[in-house]
């Protein structure tokens, strides 16, 4: 690539400046909370003082769970496998309403009762077990660091490929921005930038798909074009029916649809909204925005096969289509969409990892009386940022290995302890521990020895096994103390 393309870069720089502005705007709230000591600071810093309205909640939720995968990897796969991959992507459609309705108001009410600011806070009060806290916090710190590094690499490659910056410059540019606004502004900055990013993604996606359909001479023309390249491109079985089999594609409903409830960065959003009206609005906005984004981006990938045949690397499909459909300055604005998708996922993960270190490990286990939570939180996020930068610059084998398990491992850790803890009075610490250990353990085993059990995605059976373990162990061991039940269920 070599030469930087200035006219693509300028809109991107303006966009980044606006992101910085939101960070500094949120700093005001954080500084105010800093005057108060201890936990109050963390309530502002980690969940924005439980004050999000419906639109911001919807945008931060959608932007967080739609990651680089949905904007770069997903369309790239749709380019290769055709409409079958768009079909697969639509299994994420329910996330907008499902997460918020299932965790729902009960989760928000309990979070207020026990003053929880992280998922681990919730699990700590519900199970009163140190080992559960340690496992959950470590799972967040390790899995998230690995997956954040992978996403930083993706973002840097995107900047490198489309703007012509060198990899190092791109990585620094991206990393410093995320780190600065997350560190100074906390959750409020993350939610506000997510909202900006969600709007940019939605408008950008709509613009790109409409342009693609017009350039391609209408939907019929494009679908005929796909059929002419390979009839499988317009079938739900794809070009390789062995690979995109019905059982495997359908099991994505578990992986990216329903089990998303178990991702801490998604679930924590369900304790950050202001009132029941915000929840209602968020479900409506969230569902519509996910529909536009999922359909738009993946159809773009599939149609891209007809518009620009012969793109070799899947990661380059979206940037290539965008830069060839639009003049450079507009491409710069639209490219902010995929970058925003990465940023909005990474910032939430960064904040949660900071929460895990400061709130879950330090405040909960080491020194509950600490006053200076603010300085500790800033230090932790700068420290994590530097680690991720080093990892992304030259990924060590351990991180590559961890990233393989990051998504499934996080779900296997958190899904059942959250859901059963919320809805089943008999769920106890022994059950939660057994479920976390069998969940992560069996997921790693299946991943290596039987990656497609019964034709389904690896995650399905481990989730069933860990659910069964949880229920059986809880039934055969003493139930939670009366104090816990009263605290969670009492009026």
């Amino acid at each position, binding site marked *: 690539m070599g030469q930087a393309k200035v006219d693509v870069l300028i809109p991107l720089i303006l966009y980044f400046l606006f992101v910085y502005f939101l960070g500094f705007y949120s700093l005001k709230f954080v500084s105010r909370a800093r005057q108060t000591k201890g936990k109050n600071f963390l309530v502002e810093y980690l969940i924005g003082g439980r004050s999000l309205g419906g639109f911001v909640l919807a945008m931060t939720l959608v932007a967080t769970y739609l990651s680089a995968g949905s904007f770069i990897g997903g369309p790239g796969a749709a380019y290769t496998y055709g409409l079958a991959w768009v079909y697969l992507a639509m299994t994420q459609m329910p996330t907008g309403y499902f997460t*918020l309705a299932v965790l729902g108001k009960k989760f928000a009410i309990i979070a207020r009762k026990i003053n929880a600011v992280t998922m681990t806070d919730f699990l700590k009060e519900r199970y009163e077990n140190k080992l559960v806290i340690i496992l959950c916090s470590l799972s967040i710190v390790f899995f998230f660091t690995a997956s954040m590094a992978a996403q930083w690499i993706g973002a840097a490659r995107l900047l490198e490929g489309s703007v012509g910056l060198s990899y190092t410059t791109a990585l620094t540019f991206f990393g410093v921005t995320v780190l600065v606004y997350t560190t100074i502004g906390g959750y409020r900055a993350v939610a506000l930038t997510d909202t900006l990013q969600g709007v940019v993604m939605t408008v950008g996606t709509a613009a790109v798909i409409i342009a693609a359909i017009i350039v391609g001479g209408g939907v019929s023309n494009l679908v005929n074009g796909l059929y002419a390249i390979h009839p499988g491109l317009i079938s739900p079985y794809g070009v390789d029916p062995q690979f995109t089999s019905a059982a495997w594609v359908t099991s994505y409903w578990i992986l990216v649809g329903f089990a998303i409830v178990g991702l801490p960065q998604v679930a924590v959003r369900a304790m950050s909204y202001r009132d029941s009206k915000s929840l209602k609005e968020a479900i*409506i906005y969230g569902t519509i925005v996910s529909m536009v984004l999922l359909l738009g981006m993946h159809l773009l990938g599939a149609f891209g096969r007809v518009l620009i045949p012969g793109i070799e690397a899947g990661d380059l499909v979206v940037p290539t289509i965008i830069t060839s459909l639009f003049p450079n300055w507009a491409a710069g604005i639209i490219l902010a969409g995929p970058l925003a998708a990465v940023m909005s996922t990474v910032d939430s993960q960064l904040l949660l990892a900071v929460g895990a270190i400061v709130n879950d490990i330090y405040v909960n286990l080491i020194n509950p009386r600490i006053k200076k939570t603010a300085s500790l939180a800033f230090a932790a996020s700068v420290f994590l940022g530097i680690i991720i930068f080093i990892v992304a610059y030259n990924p060590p084998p351990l991180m590559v290995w961890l990233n393989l398990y990051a998504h499934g491992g996080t779900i296997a850790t958190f899904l059942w302890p959250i859901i059963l803890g919320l809805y089943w009075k008999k769920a106890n610490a022994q059950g939660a521990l057994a479920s976390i250990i069998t969940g992560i353990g069996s997921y790693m085993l299946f991943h290596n020895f039987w990656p497609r059990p019964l034709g389904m995605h690896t995650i399905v059976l481990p989730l069933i096994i860990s659910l069964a373990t949880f229920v059986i162990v809880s039934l055969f061991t003493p139930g939670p103390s009366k104090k816990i039940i009263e605290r969670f269920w009492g009026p």
Partner: protein
Amino acid sequence: MSNQKNTELELKEDPRYKQCNREALWGLALGVANLVWWFAWGYGLGNKPPEEYTYILGFPSWFFMSCIAGAILFSLLAIAVVTFFFKDMPLEADEKYREQKEN
């Protein structure tokens, strides 16, 4: 023994939870219905050689019905469910009750 346990568990519940549980079930029902719709149209109409496909607005019918019509229908259903079956309620912890207990 087990009887005693049961009465212990039968404490007075936060009155808001009944409605909360109902709303969670609505979410679950909507999700499962969405899966069934997606699967039935997608594999129902798509399960034949592409030469025999019919088309709606240019898209193969299986794709249009499962992905496009399905997405629009379930967005509308989600709006209907939260509008008609979700109730507004305060989310705050009841301070009065807490004070009583602490005294």
